[in-house]
């Protein structure tokens, strides 16, 4: 069963059935409703992690089906950029300004017009079926789990659903990894979101940099076995305090805020001394967050407050407490339950094309082969050819370096992490090329006698 939060909007219905309809009635859970002209500017109040925020802008890419609100959303474009808004999170909505362009005539697919040469998109639009892509991200961030695959899945989404509206599900199963790569990943996800796509993370394990990635997405859902948090930056075995490097804390807080999470959550995930608690209104489901440091709460905790991180504890969520406080929006044990959460037709899982899975598999295979070859090559360097004399050894070493060069071009970060050539990707290639030249020179000298 899907344990979705059901605290929001009941459903949305079309006020007029015409394909050129512009007025839409949002019918709210409290029995009220609001009629808005989707072609004009609107002001939307959204419940984000229990906090109401108001945004003004123009609706684009409205995706809805009467009677089935869960998982439906629209893009709002305003001074703040583009933001994906889940219809169930809308607390209030009202028209505010003049009509916009004719682009937004069809509320169903207002910003998705097929372009020539994009057959897949045309087909997707013609069938009216939601574009869904799936990318499993598993392993170490910066190793098996990279921004490059996310960039590509974003490009596929653009191709299949120009102007936004695709759903990209990222399965996250990671113990963490490199901070620098994590920042690149977050930037990539932010860009994809800004192009109007909806990025959903489905967490099996999102530790450290893995959690940072999950928090950059529009929404988080958990596998029942899932866990997320523990984002402390560690160098060697020493943690990095914000006084040493404020950027790491600031980056996580920025990510949290952008996605509507409390900054207390981010702080508690980073360093033990920050504390987090919340109070949930049993009727409205609204969550109020409370923070503190070194054993002192910034404001007194009200009765019924749930402390999720003490002064001695790093914050890490499991499926149940993440759902209870709204960090997660659902718990899905398999992709069929993800489909149910996303409100896909008939609640059945599908992907519009399988390039996401292929991307993941290709890179996983490459990574596995590269790390294995790196270890073998490093060992071979010690002995290969030595029994057959200096010339044979030089020849073998040149061969080994050429293979290192191949991998440095194909998987630069893996070579940087596992090889003896330094960390700068461009420098690594130059370094290997220099060594090859040197050995070739030695070989020539040897042959000349």
């Amino acid at each position, binding site marked *: *069963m899907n*344990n979705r939060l059901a605290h929001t909007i009941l459903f949305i219905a079309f006020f007029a059935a015409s394909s050129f309809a512009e007025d839409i009635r949002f019918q709210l859970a409290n029995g009220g409703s609001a009629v808005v002209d989707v072609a004009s500017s609107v002001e939307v109040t959204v419940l984000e992690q229990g906090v109401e925020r108001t945004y003004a802008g123009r609706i684009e890419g409205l995706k809805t089906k009467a009677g089935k609100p869960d998982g439906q959303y629209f893009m709002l474009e305003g001074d703040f950029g583009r933001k994906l808004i889940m219809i169930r999170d809308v607390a209030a909505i009202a028209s505010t300004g003049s009509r916009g362009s004719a682009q937004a005539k069809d509320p169903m697919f207002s910003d998705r017009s097929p372009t020539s040469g994009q057959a897949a998109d045309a087909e997707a639009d013609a069938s009216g079926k939601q574009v869904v892509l799936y990318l499993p991200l598993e*392993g*170490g961030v910066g*190793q098996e789990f990279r921004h490059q695959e996310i960039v590509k899945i974003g490009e596929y989404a653009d191709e299949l659903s120009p102007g936004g509206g695709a759903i990209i599900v990222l399965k996250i199963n990671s*113990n963490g990894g490199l901070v620098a790569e994590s920042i690149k990943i977050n930037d990539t996800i932010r860009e994809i979101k800004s192009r109007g796509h909806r990025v959903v993370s489905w967490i099996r*394990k999102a*530790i*450290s940099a893995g959690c940072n990635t999950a928090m950059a997405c529009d929404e988080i859902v958990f596998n*029942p*076995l*899932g*866990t*997320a*948090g*523990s*984002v*402390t930056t*560690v160098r060697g*075995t*020493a*943690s990095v*305090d914000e006084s040493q490097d404020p950027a790491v804390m600031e980056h996580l807080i920025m990510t949290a805020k952008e996605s509507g999470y409390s900054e207390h959550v981010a702080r508690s995930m980073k*360093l*033990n001394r920050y504390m987090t608690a919340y109070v949930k209104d049993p009727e409205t489901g609204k969550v109020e967050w409370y923070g503190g440091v070194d054993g002192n709460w910034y404001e007194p905790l009200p009765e019924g407050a749930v402390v999720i991180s003490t002064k*001695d*504890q*790093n*914050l*890490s*969520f*499991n*499926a*149940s407490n993440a759902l209870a406080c709204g960090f997660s929006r659902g*718990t899905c*044990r*398999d992709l069929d339950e993800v489909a149910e959460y996303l409100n896909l037709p008939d609640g059945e899982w599908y992907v519009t094309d399988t390039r996401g899975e292929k991307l993941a598999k290709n890179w996983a295979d490459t*990574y*596995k082969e590269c*790390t*294995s070859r790196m*270890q*073998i090559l490093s*060992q*071979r360097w010690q*002995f*290969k050819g030595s*029994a*057959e004399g200096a010339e044979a050894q030089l020849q073998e070493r040149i061969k080994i370096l050429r293979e290192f060069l191949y991998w440095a071009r194909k998987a630069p970060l893996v070579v940087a992490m596992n090889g003896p050539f330094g960390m700068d990707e461009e420098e690594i290639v130059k370094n290997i090329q220099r060594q090859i030249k040197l050995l070739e020179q030695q070989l020539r000298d040897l042959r000349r006698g």
Partner: protein
Amino acid sequence: MPRLFITSLLTLIATTSAFAEDQIVKINGAIISGQIISEDGDAVVLSIRGIELRIPMSEIREIVRDEEDAPASAEASEPSSSAPMGEMQKAEFSNKWERRMDASGNPVPLVAIIPVGTEGREQVGTDIVPEVYEAMIPVLRDMQPDYVVFRVNCNDKRENGYWYQVKREEASMLNDFDLLGEIADVWHNRFEDEGIYAQPICWVEDAVGSSAVLSLSFCDLYTSSEATIGGLQGAAQMFERVRSDENTYGKYREAFLGMFRGPLELGRIRCDGAGHDNALLDALVYPDMRLSATWQGRSVKWELNRKGSYIVDDNDKSAVEFSAKEAGDFLISKGMADDLDDLLLLHELVDFDLDDTSCQEVFDDYSEDWRKALAECKTAIEEMQELQAGVGPSDAMRQAQFRLTRMKKILRMMNRYSAVALRCQMEFGLSKLGLEVQIEQLEEQIRAMRSNDRGRQGGRGGAPRGGGRGIGGR
């Protein structure tokens, strides 16, 4: 071959008129036979082989008393009573898992036993791995049991150390802490996905180490009278090396606990919210956590402090552990049973058929095979150690070939059984990749020795190979 055992005593009770008893027909269709010893408006108390079972009236559809039922019972049991037991079994179970009908014409529940360890020496990470339980899926799908009893007899400390610090995937940079989640996933999700809809029951004979976590993923948990649930302190010791940095320690500790809590989280979802609390697990793992309990009706509220009505653990030197009695007192287990009949009786199953061999065979086959392979690896390693001490061939070429043969054998076993790879890594520090490189290096040495021999041979007169006096000619 899988065999089907009938719990003879209970079957006889159900099918022989001489032992006809009162029957309680429950709302869910289950029929419980015994002697009614008392009843009131709230419940009926039934005596079954001396054990008293209280059945609430709200769960009872019909009470069939002995005197009313005797003629029908005798009639129904006539064919059985006139035939020897063996023949009856043969006739009724010509199909391996064909269902037997009880006196009322209802199918008798079928119970399958799934071993989680057998002799206690079996470990999570080697014997108790997802692939063993995946291998049971076809058997269970054919069998379609009504109940599966996960019989836990596992002590991680008995044969070797914990697997926690070992990488199962060598290519991975990270230690593998996910194994418990993967096993729980097979038990709680995969079985159902594959069409096995049996009700799970966990019966703990011993759950020391990771199997304690797995056991706590079941809400229907029972123990034997000698059982222990605990022994997870070893898991906590992994991060001692970073203890001096409170944030690094906090990060690892919570991340690890998050993964360990997964099976309990899944268990609670599968039990519609019932199940075991994360706080209980936290105290089982970390010595510095206090634990107190407060009884709230038929459940216990656990707190990682001393505020509860009963302080369970007030020291910071050792993690909490529960004996069978304590597990019962704190409602971790639903009861104590020292044999299967008693266990199933506690679960209100009186008449049932039992398959305790089919899954056991799958488990034993895997366990025996990899242990045999590991023994061969150990012998090979010992032989190489003896060679180093001067036992075995004396010339360099033969020594190299001796080592090469044994290394290849070890690699073959490691590739074949993940348990062997894990144990070789834990016990001898051997990795598959490391071994592959050593083999390559040895092969190169052998080639060089052959080449040198040929060189020496050539230098001594240049006789073509195979001619004259041959290799090493004098």
